């Protein structure tokens, strides 16, 4: 099955120096399969036009496609209505839209976990400086899992918004979001989830969860780059101020006033990435075809295999939880004697294996733990055990240098 799936990804069939590409940087970006590429190409070639305001048949075609995709996204994440789906350019924009749009006041408290991507940390630090909000960072327990008791203690002191990562890009750990949302509700706090690493990898249902906001990126789930979604409960969106204003976000304007568009257009000012949005729709259809059962199973098998093999190589330390079951498709580690950047470059240059090295935009976690950096292997359903074996064999060869 995987080989058939793989054939749908032109990017993955490339070779360098006679070696097939092994792509293990899926937590950063995922390649587009043929249906996505073809849909975007078709848009650019056949009905490229001005969406949202053009009365040509092409303009209408775009509007229809965008509306279809909005519906598809809504169903995919279990939203109540397509109105609750706002197209953005990435997760970061979605989080910023909420952070700025809530109009938080001085002294209001926002809680984040201690393993947030910079996308869900820096904006709060900026608001701390600009508006005097209070940022609460909740430390993980000693086994790197989420501290629910600690959350309750903070909620009792008063929290306006809990904004946490759903599944972490640091170690793949999925937070107990159901319990988090339930607890936050008890204390009247809003909840926003950073779903960048969750939505592409396992089933998410915002309605069942009862979450207020969920942001995620299309380019981590096989859609073209520069695509993203912010889900917001309608009642919450009605109270949210837009991040951008301008064309398409108003019904009418005068020199001294304007009339805001309805939701979601109100939040989508300016011409949009229509090709990308259409591609996102196709990517979702592709995921549905593959199915989350298969995705979860495949990622776990890969994670289990890679973890087991890495444990046999000396000098390796893992970032985050030890158990591969709790780490989705991510294995993040460092070697005591070889620099992570160097290791990643060696894998690329010697074996055409792409990984990611550095601090994975969770600098704060590395700084607090005194870990310099690490190398992250992140898989998706099209990765195979054969590729994982290649990775391990290349790693052994490289680490044999030290």
């Amino acid at each position, binding site marked *: 099955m995987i080989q058939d799936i793989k054939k749908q990804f032109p990017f993955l069939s490339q070779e360098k*120096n006679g070696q097939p590409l092994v792509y293990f940087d899926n937590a950063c970006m995922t390649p587009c399969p043929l249906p996505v590429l073809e849909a975007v190409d078709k848009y650019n070639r056949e009905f490229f036009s001005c969406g949202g305001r053009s009365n040509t048949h092409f303009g209408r075609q775009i509007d229809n496609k965008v509306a279809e995709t909005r519906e598809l996204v809504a169903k995919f994440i279990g939203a109540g209505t397509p109105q609750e789906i706002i197209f953005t350019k990435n997760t970061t924009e979605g989080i910023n839209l909420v952070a700025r749009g809530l109009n938080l006041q001085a002294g209001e408290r926002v809680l984040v976990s201690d393993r947030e991507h910079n996308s869900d940390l820096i904006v709060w630090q900026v608001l701390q400086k600009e508006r005097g909000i209070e940022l609460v960072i909740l430390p993980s327990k000693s086994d790197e899992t989420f501290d629910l008791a600690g959350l309750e203690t903070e909620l009792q002191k008063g929290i306006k918004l809990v904004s946490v990562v759903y599944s972490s890009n640091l170690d793949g750990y999925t937070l107990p979001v159901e319990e988090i949302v339930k607890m936050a509700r008890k204390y009247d706090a809003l909840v926003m989830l950073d779903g960048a690493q969750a939505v592409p990898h396992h089933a998410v249902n915002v309605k069942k969860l009862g979450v207020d906001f969920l942001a995620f990126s299309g380019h981590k789930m096989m859609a073209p780059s520069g695509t993203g979604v912010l889900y917001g409960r309608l009642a919450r969106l009605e109270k949210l101020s837009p991040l951008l204003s301008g064309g398409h976000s108003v019904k009418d304007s005068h020199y001294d006033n304007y009339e805001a568009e309805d939701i979601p257009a109100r939040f989508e000012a300016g011409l949009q990435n229509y090709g990308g949005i259409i591609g996102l729709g196709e990517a979702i259809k592709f995921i549905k075809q593959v199915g989350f059962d298969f995705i979860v199973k495949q990622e776990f098998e890969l994670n289990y295999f890679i973890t087991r093999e890495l444990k046999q190589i000396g000098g390796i330390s893992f970032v985050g939880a030890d158990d591969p079951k709790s780490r989705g498709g991510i294995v993040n580690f460092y070697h005591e004697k070889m620099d992570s950047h160097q290791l990643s470059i060696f894998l690329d240059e010697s074996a055409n294996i792409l990984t990611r090295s550095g601090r994975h935009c969770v600098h704060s976690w590395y700084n607090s733990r005194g870990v310099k*950096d690490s190398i992250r292997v992140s898989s998706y359903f099209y990765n195979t055990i054969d590729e994982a074996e290649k990775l391990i064999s290349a790693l052994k060869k490289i680490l044999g240098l030290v």
Partner: protein
Amino acid sequence: MICLAAFIVFAIFGIFSATHRRLAKEAFWCVLRRVTFKPCQASIGEILKGKIVGWLLRRQSRWAGWVHRYFEVFSWIFVAITLISTFYTIKGAYYYARYGTCNPEHPEQCLISTQAALEKGIKNPYYCNDK
């Protein structure tokens, strides 16, 4: 030291290509240690080392381990050889401009000696010391 080696190589290539000029600039800042290394970015030294050792690894070369271990030493040797040859090139160019030969003591050993220098040199091998 790899930064200096990279700077020299890229500066020479940079005469012909804008890409290499950019790399030369990066290597230059690396030499001056003014690069603010971001934790998520590999240095130009790591990238070059990765390319060289990676190439050797691909060829199953036993040299890979050596080059990896003694990369700094190899970089020093490379820079020393480059600096010495640069010194002699400049010296030769200076002699050529002044005397019409890059080797005034033995103009016949310099491929680009002018006819006049050759004639004068054969008559008086130490003519450059002539006042």
